[in-house]
């Protein structure tokens, strides 16, 4: 501890926010100097006893880490690392690094060590990501735009596009779509042949198709009619469909 201070405090690796960037930082942490923390650029609070080092994303390094996780700790662990990266938790990369240190020591058995703090911490970061994915698969709402393009807006807490875009690509085989992550200014797009995630900095949505409003009204009418009056329970409703999702749900926002 003391000699670190002499060097200028705990080392913090900063990566560019990408999955590959995070894996590169983990590579550096392994082969160069063990860090105090690993953080995505632009979302940390400077502490007095820390020094910072930017990590240049390097696909060969990240690829090696990726393959090593898969080969030595297994697919489940790799999944946990990936879901962890999608989380909005600022310390996610640090937790993932701690998880992997243990993982490389004990191998695939790590995912059974549910009571171990390093494993428990990553599970805790994973859970809200998967819960949000589960909700958003159902709550996302597409509108049909001019030219038959399906367009949906979302503002998710965790980064959901890498999960949702392939999911809807499988489901919407014949129709092009755009899922617009308004908060992150990104979009998951499909032209029916392939999907990818692109920047939506300068994106403007196409116009609505003429019949779109009719279908919204039909859906709202159906949604109203299925509620049994003598069982009304708005509390349970907002527990199951939390209000933060309502903004983009046709039947909850009045079809705006």
């Amino acid at each position, binding site marked *: 501890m003391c000699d670190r201070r002499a060097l200028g405090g705990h080392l913090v690796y900063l990566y560019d926010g990408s999955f590959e960037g995070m894996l590169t930082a983990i590579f550096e942490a392994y082969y160069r100097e063990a860090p105090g923390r690993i953080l995505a650029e632009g979302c940390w609070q400077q502490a007095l006893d820390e020094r910072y080092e930017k990590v240049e994303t390097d696909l060969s390094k990240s690829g090696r880490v990726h393959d090593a996780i898969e080969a030595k700790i297994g697919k489940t662990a790799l999944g946990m690392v990936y879901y962890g990266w999608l989380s909005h938790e600022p310390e996610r990369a640090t937790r993932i690094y701690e998880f992997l240190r243990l993982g490389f020591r004990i191998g695939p058995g790590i995912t059974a060590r549910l*009571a171990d703090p390093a494993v428990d911490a990553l599970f805790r970061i994973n859970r809200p990501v*998967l819960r949000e994915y589960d909700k958003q698969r*159902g709550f996302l709402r*597409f509108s049909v735009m001019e030219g038959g393009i399906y367009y949906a807006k979302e503002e998710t807490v965790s980064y959901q596009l890498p999960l949702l875009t392939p999911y809807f690509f499988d489901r919407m085989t014949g129709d092009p779509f755009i899922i617009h992550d308004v908060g992150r200014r990104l979009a998951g797009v499909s032209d029916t042949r392939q999907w990818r995630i692109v920047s939506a900095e300068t994106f403007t949505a196409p116009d609505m198709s003429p019949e779109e409003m009719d279908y919204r009204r039909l859906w709202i*009418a159906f949604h*109203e009619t299925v509620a049994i009056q003598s*069982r009304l329970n708005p509390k349970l409703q907002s527990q*199951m469909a939390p209000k933060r999702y309502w903004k983009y749900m046709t039947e909850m926002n009045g079809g705006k």
Partner: protein
Amino acid sequence: MGRVMIMSMDLADKLRILGGAARYDSACTSSGSQRGGVKGMTGNAVSCGICHSFSADGRCVSLLKVLLTNHCINDCKYCYNRSSNDIERTAFTPEELADLTMSFYKRNYIEGLFLSSGIVRDPDYTMELMCRVLALLRGQYGFNGYIHAKAIPGGSAGMISRLGRLTDRLSVNIELPSERSLVLLAPQKDKEKILNPMGLIQRGIRDRDQRGFAPAGQSTQMIIGATPDTDYQILRLSESLYRKFELRRVFYSAYVPVGDHPALPVAGKPPLLREHRLYQADWLLRFYGFSADELLDQRRPALDPVLDPKCQWALRHLETFPVEVNRADYSVLLRVPGIGVRSAKRICVARRTASLDFEHLRKLGVVLKRAVYFITCKGRYQTDLKINEGFIYRNLAADVGSRRQIAAPAEQLSFFSEPDREDAIQCVTGEL
């Protein structure tokens, strides 16, 4: 004449009438089928099901749940669509319904279609009409999403087999839990008319070939509180349905007064707490290895309104406790209040590498508030507790009481929705 009226009616009005008429069916799950997208078709299916919305009564909306028509030749007293009820009648055309399903599905409003119907002319003719809609949807419209259809009591083997090939799940609703109630309130139905199609569906599923027959299995529903049938009778019936017909699910629907027959209860609140307790007990039958006779008996035919059925059982069997979590079999852990399927599995995994203490258990998702009276870790209780039935009952009941107040006016406690959601999440993780 009827036809002209049908054609001129606004689609939104039809949807209101035929959706409203189907809302008393509790089954809205889209679970049990797993298939990926297919080129040239629309849709997929996810085995844990997906909730697309929640209505103002807090129930999940997953499927476009409608009747094909609310015309009905029968006069079941408990049913809103009974022939003697003076209500507006209408029907969807196959094109209208296929277009609605596709348009809703592609906008991600729904996971699929739940199609039921009043009986037009006779059961087979009605199923013929239903098949026409589904064949149009699966064929011309290329719909590859989830379909749940209700087989009509009294339907023939031929029609059931056609329906089964077009659907993910089939159900025949029992509705009334005893023959006596059936005779009284559904004079045109009888046990045979309901159980025969169930058997036919079961055979269809068993002999399933490449083309698939109801891959998500068969379910049914019972109405709770319309008749004097007890919880014990109902659970015994569910148990034998699971065993004999290999049903995936039995749904319970608290009776909402819609009829005026002297044998029916008059207007009042639907028995939601009772419905909730039955779902919990049903869960115990399916996933926890309990039998109906362990939970209730002739002398004690009703589930306790204060404690959930597992706590109730545990209190009557204190001689089997405490259970040592580091050694007890999975099946024994499952019987401990506060330990669910997920946490029992986690315990079995985690104790291979560590000797578990109470802090570990909390991390593994055990509800310690309930479990502490029934378990030891490394041979010791969490604290010095004086274990006797009265003490535990008071503590558990106090806990439930305080939670109930917080959850008011919701009689549906959170216990039941938990495993559903947990399973859903597990399903997501399982993909990788």
